[in-house]
């Protein structure tokens, strides 16, 4: 799947065992945040562990020691409520202290239920009001190009966000401005606040193609496919890239994936140890 690599990247040769192990560590970090709280956006977070592993530990030019470096690649997490997944990454990278993870969602904790720009290094945007991320990412990609800055812009949006009209305004602008330094991912996990997607949104890939984007479609929980799509997206061909990523909410813990498709997972107090055990067992299979 991956095309010939033409550009120097921090980890040019992907080590899939390493990336799998990182995805697993991110899941552990997410469980640590959610444990004991009874509820949270755990399902969505678990579903994008492979994506974030490939992004932060392979594809993105990002130095955790300098999270605001001018030449860093940017990652815009449009779905701010996936913050649990971003905190998992930032803790693993040492940008936030590992002990802080358990404060997720607590009063005065910087690890809020939704991302707020400026509060935690490594957070590029205030997410949570859906339909903002792609437009901001497009503007950043345009601005970087005007600055002659070779950094790239990665942006995650969700299938639910495709219901927001602003997403399509941004889609149009990104093509008009020929932003080939913009690489977006739509996380198709099939759930939204009211449950399984409440209005039909397929065919997702065809919609992006019709808007003029270069599109590829992958299993977002298959690390080789995620890395392959990221390599594919390196092409400097004058068009923005969209990677349609099918993910399984709760991935890594079968008990959660089998639960009713829930936007906001609820877990009983005595269930957390079981979840932890199952996460380790399933990883070791």
């Amino acid at each position, binding site marked *: 799947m991956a095309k010939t690599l033409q550009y120097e990247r921090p980890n040019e040769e992907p080590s899939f065992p390493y990336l799998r192990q990182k995805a697993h560590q991110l899941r552990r970090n997410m469980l640590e945040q959610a444990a004991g709280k009874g509820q949270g956006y755990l399902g969505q977070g678990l579903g994008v562990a492979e994506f974030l592993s490939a992004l932060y530990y392979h594809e993105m030019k990002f130095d955790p020691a300098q999270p605001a470096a001018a030449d860093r690649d940017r990652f815009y997490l449009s779905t701010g409520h996936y913050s649990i997944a971003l905190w998992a990454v930032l803790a693993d990278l040492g940008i936030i202290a590992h002990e802080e993870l358990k404060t997720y969602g607590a009063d005065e904790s910087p690890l809020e239920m939704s991302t707020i720009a400026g509060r935690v290094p490594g957070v590029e945007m*205030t997410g949570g009001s859906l339909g*903002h991320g792609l437009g901001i990412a*497009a503007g*950043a990609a345009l601005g970087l190009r005007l600055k002659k800055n070779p950094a790239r812009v990665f942006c995650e949006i969700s299938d639910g966000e495709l219901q927001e009209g602003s997403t399509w*305004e*941004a889609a149009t602008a990104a093509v008009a401005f020929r932003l080939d330094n913009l690489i977006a991912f739509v996380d198709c996990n099939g759930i939204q606040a009211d449950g399984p997607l409440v209005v039909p949104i397929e065919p997702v890939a065809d919609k992006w193609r019709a808007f003029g984007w270069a599109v590829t479609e992958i299993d977002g929980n298959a690390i080789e496919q995620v890395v392959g799509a990221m390599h594919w997206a390196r092409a400097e061909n004058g068009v923005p890239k969209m990677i349609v990523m099918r993910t399984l909410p709760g991935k890594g813990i079968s008990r959660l994936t089998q639960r009713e498709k829930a936007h906001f997972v609820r877990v009983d107090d005595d269930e957390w140890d079981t979840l932890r055990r199952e996460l380790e067992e399933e990883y070791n299979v």
Partner: protein
Amino acid sequence: MSDRRTLGMGELEKIENRPFEKAPFARGAMAVNKKRGDIVVLTADLGKYTDVYPFRDAYPEHYYNVGMAEQALVTVAAGLSHAGMVAYCTTYGAFATRRAYDFLAIACAHGNANVKMFAGNPGLTTGYGGTHQAIEDLALMRAIPDMTVIDPCDAIEMAQVAEQAAEIEGTVYCRLLRGNVPVVFDETYRFELGKAKRFGTGTDIGFISTGFMTERCLDAVQALRAHGINASVLHVGTIKPFDAAGIAEFAQSVDKVVTAENHILIGGLTSLVTDALYRSGTLKPMLSIGIPDRFIECGSLPYLQTKYGLTAERVGQQVLAWLDAAAPVAAT
């Protein structure tokens, strides 16, 4: 039926009573980009009608049009600011505020994005009716935390704000005066963010005004002189941060206060002045001139501005009627 009519798109009302300047916004925007080099003008299919073509022609690589897409206009602007550019957005105020409110609030103001929104057709500066007249934009914008809100009076101030806006920290909403814009202030005028400016020394009536109503109030001061009334004007160019202390000090120096704004009488200048005066314990008789609580019809600007009391002549008439009504009945 009047033989006047709603003007066509881009058609300009004649300005007969004072000099005017064409496209002062573009002059200011070009001056600031010449100095800094980091200004990007973004518009949403209203480049021609928001006076940005001179900028486009001077800096084509710094001009982008997102099409009729105000949400993209504002989010792309926020992203540009993340990359170190300063986005100067233009559209009409009705669209900027009503269509892109969440984006101005969250993508811009919440993150202190270096985005400057220049919003045309404020209040009754267009005859295109309720869809195009931004009559409540100041109220909407000033309610957003960390948003700066400016309502300039004339061509001099418009160009100065355009030139200074890049230096104002965070997100700015500025009403855009476009086309042939009257020159009211002289060249010594200096816009200062958050500072109201006094014109004249009269103390019978103190006008507190914003936007183009300051022009009308200054003219009304001349007319009232013939009636033996000495008035002065306090121009409030910045709606937020609001010069509450300056407003109170001014009001304390006059007998009666008249507020005047090209905006609905809800949540704009009148509300701010009332609030500031009450809090400072400055209780003066007050008349408020502005747009009533209703959507306004289509029509020619002289017709609409006369009907809704925004011309200099109508300002003077309203003040005289108010003074007459308040006059004590002579003892018999």
